[in-house]
């Protein structure tokens, strides 16, 4: 066991964990940041997506010991107080969820996409999001939500501490 220093949502944490522990388990078990979900454990479903230095990564296959120098953003760090991130707003407005279990990962992936490509078209959205699974089948609404967010989102507001 060693102490790993992590910067998550702009806050610094020191956690006792094996460096090879998954970032997902550290977030959920040790820091009680349960908005990031487990879905498959092999990077196939995207439920565990977080931003690492602004880019979408699967936290279930990311070792905690490898991200200590980086800025990590989880779903809990996206809104500023009561002010939701435009992607969160867009998901709400478009009713882009059913059970909502995939939603955190979808939103984090979408934030990353729009940061890289603020004017992503439908084809680009589908290509980028294809690694995120929604078993309820809310895909068409998620695409619409991201298109909507693309219209209002400014790259600079996409995630506190996420950009560099």
């Amino acid at each position: 066991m060693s102490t790993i220093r992590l910067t998550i949502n702009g806050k610094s944490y020191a956690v006792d964990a094996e460096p090879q522990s998954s970032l997902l388990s550290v977030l959920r078990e040790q820091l009680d940041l349960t908005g990031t979900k487990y879905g498959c454990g092999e990077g196939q479903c995207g439920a565990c997506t977080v931003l690492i230095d602004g880019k979408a990564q699967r936290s279930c296959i990311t070792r905690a010991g490898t991200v200590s120098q980086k800025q990590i953003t989880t779903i809990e760090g996206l809104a500023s107080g009561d002010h939701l991130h435009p992607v969160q707003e867009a998901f709400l407005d478009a009713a882009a969820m059913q059970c909502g279990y995939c939603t955190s990962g979808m939103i984090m992936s979408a934030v990353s996409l729009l940061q890289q490509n603020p004017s992503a078209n439908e084809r680009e959205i589908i290509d980028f999001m294809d690694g995120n699974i929604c078993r309820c089948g809310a895909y068409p609404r998620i695409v619409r939500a991201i298109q909507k967010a693309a219209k209002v989102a400014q790259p600079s507001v996409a995630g506190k501490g996420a950009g560099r």
Partner: protein
Amino acid sequence: MSERSPMQIPLEPERYELREAAPYRFDLDRREFFKFLGAGVLVVSVLKPAVMAQESGSANQRRGDLPKDIDAWLHIGEDGRVTVYTGKVEMGQNIRTSLSQAVAEELRVPMEKIEMVMGDTQLTPFDMGTFGSRTTPTMNLQLRKVAAAARELLIGLAAKQWQADPQHLLVTDGKIADAQSTRSIEYTALTKGQQLTQTISSDIPLIPAANWKVAGQSALKVDGRDIVTGRHRYPSDQKLPDMLYGKVARPTAFNATLVSVEMKQAQDMGATVVHDGDFVGVAAPSMALATAAAAAIRAEWKADPQPSNKDLFDYLRKNTIAGKDPSGDGDLYEAGSVDHALDAADHRLQQTYTVSYIAHTPLEPRAALAKWDGDHLTVWTGTQRPFGVRGQLAEAFRIPEDQVRVLMPDTGSGYGGKHTGETAIEAARLARAARRPVKVTWTREEEFTWAYFRPAGVIDVTSGVRNDGTITAWEFHNYNSGSAGIRTYYEVPNQRIVFHAVNSPLRQGSYRALAATANHFARESHMDEMARTVKMDSLEFRLKNLRDARLRAVFEAAAKQFGWTKSKSTGQGFGMGGGYEKLGNIATFAEVNVDRKSGDVRVVRVVSAFECGAIVNPDNLRNQIEGSNIQGLGGALFEAIEFENGKILNGRMSRYRVPRFSDVPVLETVLLDRKDLPSAGAGECPMVGLAPAIANAIFDAIGMRLRSLPLAPNGLRLSADVKSS
């Protein structure tokens, strides 16, 4: 044309829906209610035997004097908050919102004043479970009545206070106003300090669907903000101080028995170990340690040889439950004389259709957190049947049900896959040994292996049809996949329809739309085969043999939206499928494109026309229909569980393909709103037309008839002449 009223439709028994009535019924003490809820107005909904009969198939079990058979209650507090208690649960079908709408409508209060308490066995009345698309036709209606009864009671109070005629009083926005003067009064002022109880009567005036203001409109998900901010705590997110993580050591194959086990190493690692019968598990302060300790257990298991998916369909046919008479269980339906009609028919067709086992793959795997206080057990778990799981726990630990409380936080989907309490029992067993709360969350591999599957099945169809397109004979045998939707809705004078129960080689159970998917696939594929035989257009052939007006209406509406008669290019094919199920009517039209070089099948466009009576929330209805089509795409095209000798071979997300963004076709939905008919559920029915529509469209594109689901797990293997044509 004939039209079915919902009361005339027999609800088909679904053998794989697990169901049981509560073994104990306790009298409810009104004082206890108010002690818990605070003063105000309490309205209770009493389940009528007729409604009960529909849900459980047995009217006599729970008939009793008031107030035992309560299925929901509503409380208006002195602060004006409305709290509604129902045993139904939320797992993505959005009933927390649609039931709130129903209450808001009848009680005339804003949605945000309403809190739904759901699926908590201590706080909510008994409910068999959330399945079978029953919430909207039953609970939604009950809650409307409860809310309407509360409204009438409040009007009565105001009338008394003002010495006014109740007829002249209007309700709006949590207030009662006198139409003949300017006075008005808030509900809270009427209920202050009171403890009023009301049961609903049969003549409660409900607001007709045509006058709905809140119900019938699209409403945003009531807890959507908690979801998009990650605040909502799903069952797997639950946590308690001093909680341990549990892990179960799994057998090497299904139905294996434990020969020997060595747990010392796991114990030395600091884990709590449990060996109880064939249950072997550990609990530890971190998931990593629990996983490592479970891996350090040395266990020897013994299992008998078991069938594999490559011999599955032969196995199902040969392993019907011996000595079981289908007529005894209502599994046999006969009309006219099929044998004579088949002999006399101009054309006789015989075909076999199959469906594979598939996995629900809810994105949140099963999870439970269990805590003991002495001999009282509390479990938070994701299940569609909290009261059923309470019964399983009471049985497993030999304690009375009133010592068990099961709570169901809104869960990460179910689709019929979370009727049972495996993780609840596992967590509770480990927690009892550890004397601390224990959480068990299944891995994706465990969910794929140790849950249960949608039943596989074999269906044999033999039909007789006249040259003019009249169906004269219909014989239909379903082996194992289930009997929902087994009866044909086409007019056929001579029928024999049989369900054959089979000893399933895999653990099987409920699934969204369940057997109706298989039965509609076989029936609607065969309809196309008959139409081709008599050289009739598929739509014309169906309409010729279909009298039901509601079903005709959806076929006609979908055909119009789809453009059924438009011309096609090479590789393009059109097909349809439809029917009724769970009180809803669906017609699905699909356009596919088959790449003749690669054999790739692409579903390009799907048009669904759906009618389920009066629409409660149109946007959520569209969401459910789109979701049904997208989820249904997996079972239609590529999902199948592969297994061999008691092991699952493709039990992980990287080996079991589910629909993704790139698989989604253009989806168009036509809603037929029948405000004159009661509202029915919509989570299941819209799925059943898709698979046959795709199969029929593939035939239309390349002349290749596919009779097994999934249709094209690895694309199509096309013969040289198809490729070159």
